[in-house]
């Protein structure tokens, strides 16, 4: 899209002064306002990619170095909960997309329903994450705070996982590197969860505003941009899930 023509067009429209109430004073047209905020959101997501990029880099390097520890570390994650959470997030992305659509269609109650659903699904995700983190705590897999190499020195001591994967004991130097795996696991899922928490807070705010009819009078920019954010957080998980849970699991 050529933005200079959009602006030239904007100037003509700006000549007559009939702004909808939601148009900020410094924009010439609603279109320009939408374009600008939307573009800003994409840029922000770009910075978010760089932010997570640092973590992914660290993951790639250490995984390369300590492959066996990372494999056995990933055996400690529950595919069931991981898949459940992925499903929850994908559904929440769908309800979020529906929210945007409903806002555009100016259906207030449907918008509210979709937002509340997204809100709840977000909470469900965090709840499941909480269950998984709690399990790590119980099994001494929280680096720095509550940690022991035992599971990796003697995999048979962890009956459930052993029954499924029959892991060989790792040599002590390699076993100790599993701690790096769990550090990255917590750093990455923690950062992701932090983004979820921020998203859920904004969702709560949006639900209150949507009740007052804020997004169903033609001004959907905020819902759309938040949708972008929510999908982004979803996509980060789509990368985290295979990297942490799935790849090289059966080796």
């Amino acid at each position, binding site marked *: 899209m050529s*933005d200079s023509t959009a602006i030239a067009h904007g*100037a003509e429209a700006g000549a007559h002064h009939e702004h909808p109430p939601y148009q900020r004073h*410094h924009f010439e047209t609603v279109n320009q306002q939408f*374009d600008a905020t939307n573009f800003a959101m994409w*840029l922000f997501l770009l910075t978010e990619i760089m932010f997570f990029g*640092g973590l992914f*880099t*660290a993951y790639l390097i250490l995984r390369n170095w300590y492959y066996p520890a990372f494999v056995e570390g990933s055996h400690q994650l529950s595919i069931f909960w991981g898949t459940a959470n992925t499903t929850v997030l994908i559904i929440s992305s769908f309800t979020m997309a529906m929210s945007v659509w409903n806002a555009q269609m100016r259906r207030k109650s449907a918008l509210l329903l979709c937002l509340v659903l997204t809100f709840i699904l977000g909470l469900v995700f965090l709840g499941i994450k909480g269950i998984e983190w709690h399990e790590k705590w119980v099994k001494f897999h929280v680096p720095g*705070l509550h940690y022991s190499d035992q599971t990796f020195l003697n995999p048979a001591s962890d009956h459930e996982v052993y029954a499924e994967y029959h892991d060989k004991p790792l040599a002590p130097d390699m076993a*100790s590197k599993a701690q790096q795996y769990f550090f990255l696991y917590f750093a990455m899922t923690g950062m992701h969860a932090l983004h979820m928490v921020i998203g859920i807070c904004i969702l709560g705010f949006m639900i209150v505003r949507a009740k007052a009819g804020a997004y169903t009078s033609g001004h959907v920019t905020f819902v759309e941009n938040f949708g972008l954010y929510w999908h982004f957080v979803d996509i980060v998980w789509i990368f985290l899930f295979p990297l942490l849970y799935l790849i090289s699991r059966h080796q």
Partner: protein
Amino acid sequence: MSAVTIVSLPDQATARVPKVNFLTKENGLLSWLLTGDHKRIATLYLISITFFFFIGGALAGLIRLELLTPQSDLMAADTYNKVFSMHGLIMVFFFLVPSVPATIGNFLMPLMVGAKDLALPKINLLSWYLYIIAGAMMLYTMAAGGVDTGWTFTTPLSTHYLNTNVISAGLAVFVAGFSSIFTGLNFIVTIHKMRCPGMTWFRLPLFVWSNYAASILMVLGTPVLAITLVLIVLERTVGIGVFDPAKGGDPLLFQHLFWFYSHPAVYIMILPGMGVISEVVSTFSRKRVFGYTAVAFSSVAIAVFGFFVWAHHMFIMGISNYSALVFSLLTMLVAVPSAIKIFNWSFTLYKGSITFETPMLYAFGFMGLFTIGGMTGVFLGATGTDIHLTETYFIVAHFHFVMVGGMLMAFLAGIHFWWPKWTGRMYPEKISQLAAVVTFIGFNLTFFPQFILGTLGMPRRYAAYPPEFQVLNVFSSAGATILGVGYLLPILYLTWSLKYGEIAGDNPWQATGLEWQTQSPPLTENFAEIPIMDREAYDYEWLERQQQKEVASVG
């Protein structure tokens, strides 16, 4: 020569600063603290960064005082370490990074592209608040006993071996980083989406181009620093992390991630300054910038190449010889656009009609000092000489030539240049010319001896040094006092001018930018009506025709 000037002021007997402008529109503290107006936020930024500049400057004074004698007698070694660490952190993250973009850039960006405000005024205000929160955390760090990691937070020193306030300092920089991300993001969106009718990309002033390039670096580089600092804080709190060599982590990974931001950060600091120089040189030689396109693209080239040279900070750190080769080559390539700029500015003077007001003097200072700073960068970018010169006072002198001789000179040039627009009043010309000259002399006396010290091998960050280096250090400290005077003067006379300066009128410099075609200080909405850009940037002939038309219509 100084008698000849382009300054054209309105008749002082009748002229008034416009009653309604962005400064007077609303009153009260709250109208400032909750403002969305980019010019007010720029003003808030200007006050805050000046505050931090003088804290950083005072710390620099302490460093130079300590280095008067070879022994560490003024302060103990760990106090000295804290002082230079705080100096670096404050100057880099609280002065240099926000200096031109968040103050002058914030003030000018919408004016220059012909918009009423930045695209996201609330985000702009948020960015200032983040800066203030970060600044408060940094001051807390200082009050709580300081931090002695150096501004580089090198692991594992910062994570496992120091018991100072690394966490609060790290978080302060983290928050300051987001402030800078939001400024950059706002600029990019504004430049893309808020240009007035007729303002094509190649009609943008070069100041906009260079800030655009710097904004790209801010938006893409800063988040990497942010995550790196998060990892440092985590490693420090839970005791394990990816940078800890004792637990299988990689301390070189930290160096890569840190310099992935911190090298581009150098360009974040210098590029906006280059933009100021383009504006100033053009205005005071009454000429279009020589090779506009080349200067515009060289900014973008610096931004792009700037992302791929970070490992030249690690030549002696045991990266493989071959990657050193690649990064050295790319470093040489990034030096070329800077050389292009210097020559283009020089040739802007060719067949111009030059006057020598204060901003121009600062700009000349910039061109000389930045040439030295840039060339010595090549000494360090060439792998062989880097071995001998890195981590010595040579590198200290190099980056002070670029950052202080370059960026600070450009900042002062810009502040003087746009002061009449900002406040509606002129600064006093004679004393400010004196300040410019004093700064230049003081600067050279302070930092030039450090090149020799570095070549002789004096390591940086030393509280005590072998006695044979003393004489040059004394020169350097003596220069620092002169430099200090050079920086105090503007504070005094600029404050004075707020009340007693001559009324500037709309366009005291007879400059062509859109910002000069509106009243000074501007209205809150910048322009009475949205301007239409129907000419190239730096079109002095257009300006002349415009003035003739006015004369004709009055006559």
